[in-house]
């Protein structure tokens, strides 16, 4: 196995871990963190697959990933602002669960 395949598989694993965190954790900040894990896992997968080019590292996927990292930050900033404003307005830091008799009073 080459290092490139290894990082591709690592990316796949991180995507799986991120999806698990997104559905299994309840704290909203935890979910944003997990969402970022999914994103960076996809970037790593993309970068590893792009490194298979025989004539050196392909710059186009690199540029796309840099764009992606910045857009992910912009989305994260908006998400954590929504979370903190939601928490301050409702007193809750996680969404109502199905098992709790969600009165939806938020």
């Amino acid at each position, binding site marked *: *196995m080459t290092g490139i*395949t*290894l990082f*591709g*598989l*690592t*990316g*796949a*694993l*991180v995507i*799986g*871990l991120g*999806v*698990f*965190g997104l*559905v*299994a*954790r*309840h*704290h909203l*900040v*935890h979910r944003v963190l*997990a969402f*970022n*894990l999914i994103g*960076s*896992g996809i*970037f*790593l997968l993309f*970068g590893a697959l792009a*490194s*298979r080019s*025989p004539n050196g*590292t*392909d*710059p*186009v996927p690199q*540029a*796309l*990933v*840099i*764009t992606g*990292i*910045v*857009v992910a*930050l*912009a989305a*994260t*900033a*908006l998400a*954590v602002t929504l979370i*903190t*404003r939601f*928490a*301050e307005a409702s*007193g*809750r830091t*996680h969404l109502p669960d199905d*098992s*709790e008799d969600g009165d939806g009073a938020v």
Partner: protein
Amino acid sequence: MTALAFDTLLAIAIAATAAGAVVARGLYASIALFIIYGLMLAVAWVRLEAIDVALAEAAIGAGLTGILLVGAAARCRAVERRTGAIGDGSGERRTLLRTIQGAMAGVLAAAVGAAVLLLPDSAPGLTATVAGTIERSGVSNPVTAVLLNFRGYDTLLESMVLVVALVGVWSLGAEQFWGGRPGLKQHARTDGVLAYFGRMLPLVGLLVGIHLLWAGAHAPGGAFQAGTVLAAVWLLVAMAGLRDAPPIASMRLRLLIVVGPAWFLAVGAIGALAGSFLGLPEAFASELILAIEVLLTLSIAVTLVLLVLGVPRRTT
């Protein structure tokens, strides 16, 4: 052989920190592991010979995202303390549900992993295309050539996404603080470590930022990496309480936010008159890219700082 051993250890470290960030009980522990994960990931990008991405991942993916998450966790903690709510609900303990969720995430990871293994070992990509036309792009760093010339519209839209996200963040603030200063007033001991770093590191940060900006034309670096380093300098000064954040009603601040994307758009529009939108004329490509990068760096730095500082919370 040594390289593969190193890569294996690195892959294990990445997977372990990512898993730790997902399963750690405490939110702060999760965020700390996430930041370490980001730095490990940056090393993996170096191993994939993508230095530009490594810089962006370390500075933005690990650094700024980490600050955002820590800030959000602190505010949530304050709310939880006030209302007596616990952060992780009792739902965390249902084993059967966890097992099913884990199995499904595992299937997804295995499917993606199988795709990695089934793909052919070699793919031509666009390396040769970029190498063949880079002489006409005005810069010699292929990543910068793609970002600012060949796929300029990506970068233009990306810089606008940052501005739109900032407008979104500001619009979530309470109405009485509109136009005020973002975040809370920072108080740090004037003889403390933070204040000391706040005075010492900005000099280093400014030099590194300007270097990254200038080097971006021919070596790893560029507007986004440089902008992030400059943003980190400003954030450090603000967190050390040495200089307060400006009120968001400030016209000078708003001009700084839009000058980069606006100039980029203007250059693109001139290109449209000459034939193709965002097509840089070969004769001036080098100078135009430098001008775009300088203004874009300023706008990115200011926008990133304000995104991290968040909604206005004070009128003065």
